[in-house]
């Protein structure tokens, strides 16, 4: 059923959000669709990605304690990580501009349609 037949071929997605339920359900969506998912509640983990770079980062804009926008800017400024596509997620529609400013590749507003999320993830991991 999965589009990525062998586990080694699976695209790796890093999901960062400060809500456990959202993190869980996004993981389910992506895993059901054949992705390998690493999830974290802590924004700093994202900043520290060095080994096993993900193929895509799904990043909540308002991670409590740390600003998703800053994480995004940082990843996009580093040589090693700047090629990784980042999709920012937020409950605030108007943060579309913030996502753009932070250098994110795309943006998705909560609550979202599963289809929209999967379509965007697919688009950036092709």
């Amino acid at each position, binding site marked *: 059923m999965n589009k990525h037949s062998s586990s080694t071929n699976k695209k790796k997605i890093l999901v960062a959000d400060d809500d456990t*339920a959202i993190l869980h359900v996004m993981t389910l969506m992506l895993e059901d669709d054949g992705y390998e998912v690493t999830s974290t509640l802590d924004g700093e983990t994202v900043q520290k990605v060095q080994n096993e770079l993900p193929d895509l980062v799904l990043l909540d804009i308002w991670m409590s304690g740390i600003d998703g926008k800053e994480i995004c800017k940082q990843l996009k400024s580093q040589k090693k990580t700047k090629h990784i596509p980042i999709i920012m997620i937020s409950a605030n529609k108007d943060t579309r501009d913030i996502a753009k400013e932070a250098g994110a590749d795309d943006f998705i507003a909560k609550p979202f349609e599963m289809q929209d999320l999967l379509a965007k993830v697919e688009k950036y991991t092709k």
Partner: protein
Amino acid sequence: MNKKSTKELRNNNQSDAIKHAQDIIDIVREPFLVLNDALKVVSANAAFYKMYKVSKKDTEGTLVYKLGNHQWDIPELRKILEEVLPKKERLTGLEVTHDFPDIGKKTMLLNARKIAGIELILLSLEDITAQRQAEEARERDEKRFRAMIEKSDDAIALVNAAGKVLYASPSTIRVMGYTPEEIQKLKNPFELVPPDERKPVTTLFEQVLKKRGSSGHTTHRIKHKNGSFIWLESVMTNLLFDPNVYAVVINYRDINKRRELEIQKDEFIGIASHELKTPVTSIKGYTQVLQNRFRKDGNIKAVELLSRMDGQINKLTSLIADLLDSTKIEGGKLQFHEGYFDFNELTTEIVDEMRLTSTKHTIVKKLATTKTIYGDRDRIGQVITNLISNAIKYSPHSNKIIVTTSEDKETVTLCVQDFGVGVPKEKQDKVFDRFFRVGGKKRDTFAGLGLGLYIAGEIIKRHSGRIWVASDVKKGSTFCFSLPIKKGMRKKQTNTLVEEELKHE
């Protein structure tokens, strides 16, 4: 009789004079006393007896101070009669107020004159109590009204048609930080409004000027003398034709507290709706994951149920979005992402979408325009969705909805027509107000927050467009909006309202 002594002659003259005086005194309407040099009453006129309620018997031959059982022992009178008159011969217009035990407090205007040769004193005692009381009442009234204005929390200014301040009340210090004198020195009071926000205020003033007695209010900011910006509500009333005023009266009310509370409330709604979105997001996510898994397993019944659940979650999402949008509008924080888009394409997209959600209603498209317009595609789409879903909601007993687009040189127009319950004439102005809901007994029949059309109205206004309704009760409603084709400046939000003409005598 023709040969009389000088003395006799004098006596005769004297008695003639007294008689003469008596005649005059009697016809005069003012109370009058004639006193001899011992200050005893020689005579009094009818007016005196009437006014001061004493009898002739008790009066004539009595020492003036002893009149009415010593009621007339008035210090001022003693002074006049004993000190002033002997030297000056006459005295006019002296006002004396005395509390008479029998007749109460009286104010008298005394005129006295000594008649030389016959040693008599004429004393008129005009009762001016009523006059004085009226004057005092007038004065009290004026003081009261002045106090009302001067001690009022509101600052009040009278301005002429050019906007020049003719009067400013002392409360301007409390409200604006400027003394009334400083306010009067301004070219006009609107100078205190930040330049970018001045237009709605001056526009209101011009509108009020146009019509006698008309009144309008607006809320706006001004720069306080201390440099901070404060919120005021201004009420302007045109009394230029009123001969007692000859001015436009402007009331300034400090509404900072109210404004703070409103902001707090809107912030709270903003936070609350944002918080609500988080669990809604995961519920929606789980629903769709389940739906997907049941689909893979071929459980169509479960898929259908979950699809209904997802529809309800979408309703919840749109309620939350409306709450959030309305607070953003109030806070002036509604953002637009503008660009060029095909108006018909958007309309078609939304009509198709709505056809999926409404099984009962047939949505007929009559699209004439082909224009590309400039604006926020999502927000305009939101307006169209709102109008169509309202048409569905308010026509439970009919099944047709017509969506029309048209254009002229400058604008494109979209109308949504239904054949439902309609809006009564008197409520048609209010349907675009925040929190307006269809009232009356049927209130519960149509659920909603009363925000949809308010948000739609604000979105259209901010695109320099126009939104309106034509409706007949039980026949249906047509809601339309038009947008300029040319890229236009977005309008600032304003809160002005010109009220009906005041009734003025």
